[in-house]
């Protein structure tokens, strides 16, 4: 009886934790979706993995990183 009660509370805890975490988890899943899959009206749990979003971010930060490196190199050359 006591064991059943404990496992019921544990289940309740996990359900609550997962509901609470869901938005962050969904963002994580969406980051691997293509634009169309991420904006589908019926939410897609299974989808083709697409790294286009990450690719865009890497492309966007590439240049400032090189500028930073050049600055550091310049400092060491002094």
């Amino acid at each position, binding site marked *: 009886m006591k064991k059943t009660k404990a496992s019921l*509370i544990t289940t309740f*805890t*996990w359900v609550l934790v*997962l509901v*609470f*975490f869901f*938005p962050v988890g969904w*963002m994580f899943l969406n980051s691997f979706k293509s634009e169309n899959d991420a904006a589908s*009206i*019926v939410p897609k749990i299974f989808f083709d993995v697409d790294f286009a979003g990450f690719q865009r971010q890497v492309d966007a930060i590439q240049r400032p990183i090189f500028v930073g490196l050049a600055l550091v190199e310049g400092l060491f050359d002094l």
Partner: protein
Amino acid sequence: MTATTPAAASMGKIAKKNVWLSRSLILPALIFGIVMTQIPFLVTIYFSLLNWNLLKPGEIGFAWFKNYVSVFTTGDLVPSIIATVGITTSAVVLSLLFGLLFAILLDRNFRGQALARTLVITPFLIMPAAASLIWKYSMFDTSIGVINWVTSSLGLPSIAWSTDLPLATVIIVLTWQFTPFFMLILLAGLQSQSREVIEAASVDGAGAFRTFQWMTLPHLRQYIEISVLLGSIMLLQVFDPVAIMTKGTGGTKTLAYLLYERAFIGLDVGQAAAYGVVTVVLTLIVATIALKTLFKVFMAGGNR
């Protein structure tokens, strides 16, 4: 009056010298702090006395207290204070309740306890702007949002959250974000409670609810007070969910957003600066009261 020996006098001199040396060593940091925090504030006060609209660059001039008069007469200030207080209070109360629930549930020993704690803390760790964007598009959106998909699958009408229920939307997002903060403080409080006392209570025949009401809750009191004070200070400056989700409509125009609106949408630098100064004064009053209470709580905590 006591007579001082020459040796003692020279010792005093050395000590005095050391004090000045140590003070001068702090000086760079002090100057940096003053430059970074006080000069912008002085500049803001100066701006607040100017008649400066970015659309009329030719008409910059001294307006003296005209901006302050308009702050108090245009009638935007009071609704904004009400919105700020309302949003802060409801978010703090809800976060406290959920935080307490999570703290109690996660204080038990169960499978994957560490993982569950980590998952619950994440909303507090992600950027406020990112959190608002997740809720705006992935959760609350009328066509692609998950929540509306769930409600429509259950046969309920879909809700345009950020336009129909703007206040509730902002409060939900803030509660979601700040629950982990309250949970962390309350969990620390729960873990500092001695197990023997609880065991003794259960031996004496106290049920779970009575133990909680008469032993755990009084023990948690100081933790609740501290979390409420710190949470209120953080929530008073809330800006991101308002700017991203509701744009200040439907009674969600907090002081921070009002200031932003005057400066970057109204393009009236002078009036925005006046709002800023008034906000700082109001926040100072609230913060002084809050810190005094906090200090009292600490003193009482030491005597307990």
